[in-house]
């Protein structure tokens, strides 16, 4: 077992860190304030390879491991949480298309998705089906050579700005086995977008409702086989959860660094804050928990890379733990800044607003516990996990 980064990983990190420091960090506050979606910057990130990190090489992706991808996303998230989160969702949707789409669709879409010239959204959640995703009610009815899509999706990240939608819809029986996945061009007739939701954080990317009204899509746009859609959506989310965990870790590390810097500078009672043991202990705990969260996340990525039978449980544990720790660390870093932490001139309140949603999306942390608990309560679980 070797916990050190290899030479490639250090080189990936170095490029990601440079990009994060130069292109993301200086703009993140402005994008947040203006509610600006920096598509141009994501496209530039795509030129460096960040938009098709783990898409298979056969389809033109970089074919990197989830572990390598996590190392890269962590650096990016230190610069801008929201933009990085959007890139991770795009990577997840792109991976699904590059893995399961028909040759025709791969030909048509993969190059531009992987280079980031076009972006993809992941459409699972519906107004009536969130945590209970398998109960979704959007339908896709086969009519000759097309499927006709009807229904609506809610809270879709990037919607209105992305070019391709990966949509989970019902083609058969109730429950998970009746669900199929489709690659749906975002601008075809019958795809209707709601207004951008007004959110607590994640201001640098739009979240919208999407309604499908008799949207006709060719059968070639079906991913894999009918009935496999829910399995694919969940496989996508295993990686997505590592990515979201990573976005929390990167942001929390940045918050911690900022707090440590502030503690050396700010003086009260004639001493720098760093001289107060109560705050030293706080920093010690934040550091310890952040390192633990990072290691658990990397371990989950490793399990996923190696097709471990318990990969899903590990991804759930990593997502639950890292997004909770990430929120606590950002919140404590804000506390260390006193009143200044609450003021927008400092980045802390943005970090707190941005990482909060990581505890909710791609499966709430309660649903993560459901997954973990189910596994942990099987016989012999203690010997397997």
């Amino acid at each position, binding site marked *: 077992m070797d916990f050190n980064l290899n*030479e*490639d990983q*250090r*080189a*990936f990190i*170095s*490029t990601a860190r*440079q*990009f994060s420091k130069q292109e993301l960090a200086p703009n993140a506050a402005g994008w947040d304030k203006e509610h600006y979606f920096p598509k141009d910057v994501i496209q530039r990130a795509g*030129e*460096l*390879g*960040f938009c098709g*990190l783990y898409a298979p090489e056969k389809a033109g992706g*970089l074919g*990197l491991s989830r572990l390598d991808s996590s190392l*890269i996303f962590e650096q990016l998230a230190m610069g801008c949480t929201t933009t990085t989160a959007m890139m991770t969702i795009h990577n997840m949707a792109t991976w699904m298309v590059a893995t399961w789409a028909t040759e025709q669709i791969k030909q048509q879409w993969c190059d531009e998705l992987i280079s980031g010239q076009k972006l993809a959204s992941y459409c699972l959640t519906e107004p009536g089906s969130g945590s209970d995703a398998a109960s979704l009610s959007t339908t896709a009815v086969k009519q000759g050579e097309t499927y006709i899509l009807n229904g609506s999706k809610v809270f879709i990240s990037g919607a209105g700005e992305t070019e391709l939608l990966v949509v989970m819809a019902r083609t058969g029986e109730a429950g998970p086995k009746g669900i199929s996945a489709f690659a749906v061009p975002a601008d075809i007739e019958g795809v209707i977008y709601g207004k951008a939701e007004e959110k607590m954080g994640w201001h640098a990317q739009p979240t919208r409702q999407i309604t499908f009204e008799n949207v006709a899509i060719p059968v070639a746009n079906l991913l894999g086989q009918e009935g496999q859609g829910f399995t694919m959506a969940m496989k996508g989310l295993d990686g997505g959860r590592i990515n979201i965990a990573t976005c929390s870790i990167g942001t929390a590390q940045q918050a911690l660094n900022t707090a440590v810097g502030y503690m050396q500078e700010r003086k009260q009672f004639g001493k720098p804050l760093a001289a107060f043991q109560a705050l030293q202990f706080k920093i010690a705990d934040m550091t310890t928990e952040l390192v633990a969260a990072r290691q658990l996340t990397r371990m989950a990525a490793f399990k996923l890379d190696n097709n471990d039978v318990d990969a899903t449980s590990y991804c759930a544990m990593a997502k639950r733990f890292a997004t909770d720790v990430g929120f606590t660390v950002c919140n404590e870093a804000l506390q260390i800044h006193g009143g200044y932490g609450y003021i927008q001139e400092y980045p802390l309140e943005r970090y707190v607003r941005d990482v909060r949603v990581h505890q909710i999306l791609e499966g709430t942390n309660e649903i993560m516990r459901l997954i973990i608990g189910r596994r942990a309560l099987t016989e012999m679980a203690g010997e397997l996990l």
Partner: protein
Amino acid sequence: MKILVAIKRVVDFNVKVRVKADESAVDLANCKMSINPFCEIAVEEALRIKEQGKADEVVVVTIGPAAAQEQLRSALALGADRGIHVQTDDNLDSLHVAKVLQQVVNSESPQLVILGKQAIDSDNNQTGQMLAALCGWSQGTFASEVVFEGDKLQVTREVDGGLQTLALSLPAVVTSDLRLNEPRYATLPNIMKAKRKPIDVIEIESLGLSLESKVKTLKVSAPAVRQAGVKVADVDELINKLRNEAKVIS
């Protein structure tokens, strides 16, 4: 035309360095190491010249410990074609670095050698000049612009009084200043491709040079800690302090 670029592994410019307790050197334990920023600019310039069709090969060379291969790989990831690693664990004087590079120049026969104007660790600013002298080549140091004009190389130099433009005949040595260009990012696919590019390793002893150091480091110490400032009541007091305490005006 072939371009040779010399690069050095140095402590990363973001690292806040500390001096070792015995004041013998800077403590490099656990420090992040990178390509010297001026050398990275030199690599970028060579790549741009190649992309303009004015050169067909960019070779990077470094002199340093085994770990310096990481910096060669970084340069290859930026787009250099192959690398040469002259391996040594010793800290060489500038003149010895120049002599080693001269040997590499002799075997590679480049028309142009680009170096950083100085390395940010020791800030010597000597190697490029010495290499040009040893080779008997023209030199353009502190370059902020490099343009081909017919068979001449026009080098704009940042000198104390402003800008000076020289026309150099090739072969030549150029050293890069900060404003010559902004280096590109290494793309992830290029980082992966760089693994397959060749690096020749040369043991420094095989060059047959006598490399006994003529320079002795007596002591390395940290800069004095900045004292807290004082507030002055009025302009008169300021002038008085500048004249009598700081002695910067008379």
